[in-house]
């Protein structure tokens, strides 16, 4: 979908509260937003869908604040990052998706596999489980969604140099984990 078309649809939603236009935007961008959450939650599709729904509802209620300086998807991902950040903070004492132990993830994956096809492979879940929340967000935004460091800093609200540090340390952790587990052979 072109950027101009996005702006036209956003205008329809903001000015005329056209729900059909918003429906088109959700259909177009549900996949990248849900994929973002899948990578942040260790492949938990139910939780990802709940957080993605919250993201789109927040986007709808604050759509008049979309300035058009970035693409609509970037704006959505910024909301998604904040939704996930709030979720991590609210659930910290019970379950912290920041530091999911690989064993926990394996068990979760096995449970998922018995009922439905897991959306992310074990390899990816295991490697991403080595990272903390910020590192995981920075790495996936760069390596999956293709955002530049400036854009990642803008989305996450983290200083550019800190983003660079997260990327370096995160990649190092993941590469070490993969090497130790024989992925380089």
């Amino acid at each position: 979908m072109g950027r101009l078309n996005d702006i036209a649809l956003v205008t329809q939603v903001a000015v005329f509260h056209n729900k059909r236009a918003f429906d088109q935007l959700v259909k177009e961008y549900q996949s990248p937003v849900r994929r973002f959450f899948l990578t942040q939650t260790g492949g938990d599709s139910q939780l990802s869908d709940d957080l993605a729904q919250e993201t789109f509802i927040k986007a709808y209620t604050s759509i008049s604040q979309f300035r058009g300086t970035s693409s609509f998807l970037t704006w959505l991902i910024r909301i998604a990052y904040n939704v996930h950040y709030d979720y991590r903070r609210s659930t910290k004492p019970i379950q912290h998706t920041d530091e999911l132990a690989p064993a926990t993830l394996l068990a979760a994956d096995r449970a998922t596999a018995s009922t439905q096809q897991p959306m992310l492979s074990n390899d990816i879940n295991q490697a991403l489980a080595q990272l903390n929340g910020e590192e995981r967000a920075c790495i996936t935004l760069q390596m999956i969604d293709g955002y530049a460091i400036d854009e990642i800093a803008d989305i996450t609200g983290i200083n550019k140099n800190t983003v660079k540090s997260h990327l370096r340390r995160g990649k190092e952790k993941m590469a070490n984990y993969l090497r130790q587990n024989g992925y380089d052979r």
Partner: protein
Amino acid sequence: MDMTDNRTDNKSEFADEQLHEQLTTADNELLEQLFRPLRTMEVADDGFTQRVMQRLPRTADAELRSVWLSRLWTLICVVVALLLFVALKGWYVIGWSIITMLNNPPSMSTILTLFAALALTVLIATTEVVHRYNYSF
């Protein structure tokens, strides 16, 4: 105290640089290989859009009514203005003004007044834009 902080920052930056150097091309390729399938991964909708649309807040309906009332009011104003223009033969007024202006070039005070009005309009518009920018996301 500041010097200690700077030293810590420099140490940290140095450590980051070292980590970066250790991240070899092979490591990068390893990560590339891992993430490549995800770049093209499409998550099927499976009723997700419908669920989002059903959960949209209903307060929007009240806002929709006010939007339509606002548009109706604008339409009424435009129609009244057009009717007055036709009833009062507005084109005569415009034509007369243009002819008068061509026959009598405007004085300096008129030009200054126009310039002041223009400056005031630009000022108001700029304030509005800045206000909207500060309160947007």
